[in-house]
């Protein structure tokens, strides 16, 4: 009997120990942050609150784009940010978006001058707005054809700027890393969205995020040669389709606009709307019978994305989880705890 009691006791202790260790959640060390992509920087109260509560004021701020000017035959900045409020309380990482076309067109001797101009413009903007920064993020969807020029640019820029340098990495650049190369930066930021095809096919999977398309890429992640922060989607858009062709994508057209029955009718597809007439809406001209396919990422889908992705990442302490982006309706629909829950996957 005594032996039996001891045995039972032992089993109980083992069970309790297992339970304690097994149920103990892995503590996440990740940090949340937001992108801000609009040209005019002006946060309303809910946005400011979300940025503070969910992300401790960590802000990746797009300062300007760099585009190829077909008429001038030269690269130039575009949509330089206009900062209309005090910004000093935010921890800012300047982000510069450079079109791949710029590198397609740029001659090799223009690379260092471009790095100089971009570095100067970043410093002019940050100095005049009293922004101190420790890192710069460059966003460019480079390809095998532009790899050499883009990477040379990154090296030249780093030499001038001297701060930490990071670059966005798209999923195809992970999968085909042997061809597209790994950029010479301190850190990569994996853009975990825009993985599907933007298509006029009304039944096409959600192009922002879907598990099927994501699965084709995530298995290559552990092999990637850079530490990776993560950018997650927090936006919706409407794909404008005319005569069977995608003609534009609008972030500013949302569920609210599309639900207006005087302008649109719902089709057999729940997320597809058809224009009843030709009319202007928010500066956009819509023709009768145009179709709008609405795609979005709701909190549930976002959580699914985080869960799918986190399983395939190499370990990294204090990984930054950056949500794209703060000014969207999708962001305003979230609460700080939702954001923290998603980030806790990493």
């Amino acid at each position, binding site marked *: 009997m005594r032996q039996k009691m001891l045995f039972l006791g032992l089993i109980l202790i083992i069970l309790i120990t297992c339970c304690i260790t097994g149920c103990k959640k892995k503590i996440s060390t990740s940090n949340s942050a937001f992108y801000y992509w609009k040209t005019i920087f002006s946060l309303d109260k809910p946005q400011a609150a979300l940025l503070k509560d969910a992300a401790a004021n960590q802000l990746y701020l797009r300062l300007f784009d760099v585009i190829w000017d077909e008429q001038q035959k030269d690269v*130039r900045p575009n949509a330089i940010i206009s900062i209309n409020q005090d910004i000093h309380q935010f921890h800012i990482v300047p982000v510069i978006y450079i079109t791949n076309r710029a590198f397609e067109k740029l001659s090799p001797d223009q690379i260092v001058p471009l790095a100089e101009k971009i570095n100067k413009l970043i410093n002019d903007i940050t100095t005049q*707005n009293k922004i101190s920064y420790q890192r710069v993020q460059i966003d460019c969807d480079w390809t095998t054809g532009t790899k050499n020029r883009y990477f040379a640019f990154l090296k030249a820029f780093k030499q001038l700027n001297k701060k930490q340098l990071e670059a966005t990495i798209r999923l195809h650049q992970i999968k085909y890393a042997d061809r597209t190369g790994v950029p010479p930066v301190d850190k990569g930021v994996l853009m975990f969205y825009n993985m599907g095809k933007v298509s006029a096919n009304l039944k096409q999977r959600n192009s922002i995020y879907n598990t099927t398309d994501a699965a084709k890429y995530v298995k290559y992640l552990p092999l990637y040669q850079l530490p990776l922060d993560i950018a997650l989607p927090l936006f919706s858009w409407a794909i404008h389709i005319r005569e069977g062709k995608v003609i534009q994508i609008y972030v500013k057209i949302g569920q609210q606009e599309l639900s207006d029955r005087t302008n649109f009718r719902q089709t057999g597809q729940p997320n597809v709307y058809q224009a009843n007439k030709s009319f202007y809406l928010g*500066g956009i001209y819509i023709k009768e019978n145009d179709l709008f396919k609405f795609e979005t990422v709701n909190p549930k889908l976002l959580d699914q994305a985080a869960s799918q992705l986190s399983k395939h990442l190499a370990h990294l302490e204090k990984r930054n989880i950056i949500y794209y982006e703060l000014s969207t309706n999708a962001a305003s629909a979230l609460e700080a705890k939702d954001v923290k829950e998603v980030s806790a996957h990493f």
Partner: protein
Amino acid sequence: MSKKFLLIFSVCFIAVAGIVVACGDGGYYDDYESSSFAPEAFVNSDYSPFFFTSSTTYYNGYYMDDSNTRYNYLVVSEWNSWFDNQVDTASLKTLLIKATAGNIDSASRYYNGKRNVLPAGLPDLKKSKANKKKVNAFFDYLLLAKECEVYSVGSGDYWSYEKAPVKEVPQALERTLMQAVNQAKDPFIKERLWFQMVRYYYFKQRQHAADPTKTDVPLPAYFTKEGASFPKNMIYYRALGYLAGYYYQKGEYAQANYLYSLCYNYSFEMKIPSRWSFHPQNEQDWMETLNLAKTGKEKITLWHMLGSRSDEARAIKEIYAIDPQSEKLDLLLSRLVNVREAEGQASKDTSATSKTKRVETANERTLVSKIANEDKTLKPYYWSMAAGYLNSLSGNYTIARTFYGKAEKQLPKNDTLVMAQYEAEMVNR
């Protein structure tokens, strides 16, 4: 029409459709197409920047999109006329366009004997036969005008950054300009000073827009009060463009777009900036804009602008109902045909093309054929040829042949471009 011709028609015009490269943060379209329907043959060249092209903003690489230099040539030639050609255009160009305020001051002092040496590079107006009073009035005007350039002319350097979204518009200048307008006797100079005053208010308002505590400027009232007496010339319409910009800044889009349409209609030089600025926002402000139009002609310009940007067929219908003889139909018809051609329509509408495309092309053919049959337009041959071409694009060769036959009888035989276009289409018959 031989079978060979049919084959060429059906093959040549299947353009390679654009592929969308979408990446959320940008994207561009790559299109390759060739046209067999040349707008040059039918449409006034004033509209040439807006001929259909899918890869660049303006047709034929047209580059007139520099706000700092757009009117330079006109400004010089207007002053040259005012001086009765007594001051050559090279000298005027130097003084009007290149010289600084300091340069003008030196040139003026030198002209009046208050300075012995003329700084290098500046023209010596003492040598001209121009009326002395006029030269002095010119210098006085220029001194003020150069002061206004501080806030009205951009640096032109894309890579420069200034935190203040707009440059400081000096407060004291308002009174100086106002006095100058009131005192000016010469109507040419008076109108230019009035223009400077209007532009001053426009930039003052822009500066205010960044600071909501500041009050409104009296631009509309000033424009109406003083503007009524001036001839409705280039400088008047340029001032009107600033009034439009003022309304745009205030979010009064109906007014802004109506005024931009008047500028668009005024001259070739104003067409690009006016069309660039023309942005109806919602159906309501667009309706208000239409209601602001005082005449059928003004309404036609508005529909023409909507049409050439967004919806050629709808605009053609509206304009045709107001005045079938309107020349503003021409550009729209060329665009309608060229856009459809670039879409790469299949030879038969019963093919796998989407339903909306079939409906749309059928509507276009019906519209253009109807107008061609009614013979009410300025250029009936143009409509007949377009109807023929659209029908052949859709594989309706019998109907196409009828329209080409009709066109043949209507052709202006002395118009070599139209004849060349007709022959180009018939060459394989």
